[in-house]
């Protein structure tokens, strides 16, 4: 069965540094991979999508890479700020239809 893993439950990063979160998957070749942000008590918010034929996607201080050979996506936040503290979820499409599966998330803490 498909499996998606975010390798850190929690990550502490000093303010101003780059935070790097990892998402690995097995037994599948997704057409795209998405990243969401979730704050406590709220629903996830879509951040970025990267397709299987794209290596890298950027949006402001966010950068996502997608290595289909390694079956891995990296999510980077540069010049991190305490306001970036949240849980970040990766998600990939299931069976190339309109369902997606989510990783369990990584809690990111940016320390002032």
């Amino acid at each position, binding site marked *: 069965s498909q499996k998606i893993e975010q390798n850190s439950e929690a990550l502490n990063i000093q303010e101003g540094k780059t935070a790097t979160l990892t998402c690995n998957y097995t037994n599948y070749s997704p057409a795209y991979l998405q990243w969401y942000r979730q704050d406590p008590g709220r629903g996830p918010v879509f951040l970025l999508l990267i397709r299987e034929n794209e290596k890298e996607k950027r949006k402001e201080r966010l950068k996502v890479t997608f290595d289909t050979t390694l079956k891995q996506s990296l999510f980077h936040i540069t010049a991190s700020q305490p306001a970036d503290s949240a849980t970040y979820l990766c998600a990939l499409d299931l069976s190339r239809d*309109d369902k*997606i599966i989510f990783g369990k*998330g990584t809690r990111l803490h940016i320390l002032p």
Partner: protein
Amino acid sequence: DAGITQSPRHKVTETGTPVTLRCHQTENHRYMYWYRQDPGHGLRLIHYSYGVKDTDKGEVSDGYSVSRSKTEDFLLTLESATSSQTSVYFCAISEPGQGPPEQYFGPGTRLTVT
């Protein structure tokens, strides 16, 4: 929250009682989803709908049913609530085929079954 509301936002109910959660959208999106989120499990899909009266099961559908009689409303029913259904429930919407298929989530409903 992209024009998505969920009601109620909080509910406490007893084991064995029926419970219905409502998701309402004003975006006219075709797809609607119900997820539950639990510590250690992340977000898991319960049921989803790809149009009025068109629904399908997700990975954790046992004990749940859904209905969609109008584009804007998607109801999740627990026919006989159990303590294992204590969770936070999220509704999401998307409109694949008109760009990236990202999902927009509602604020969630916290359900406690005692």
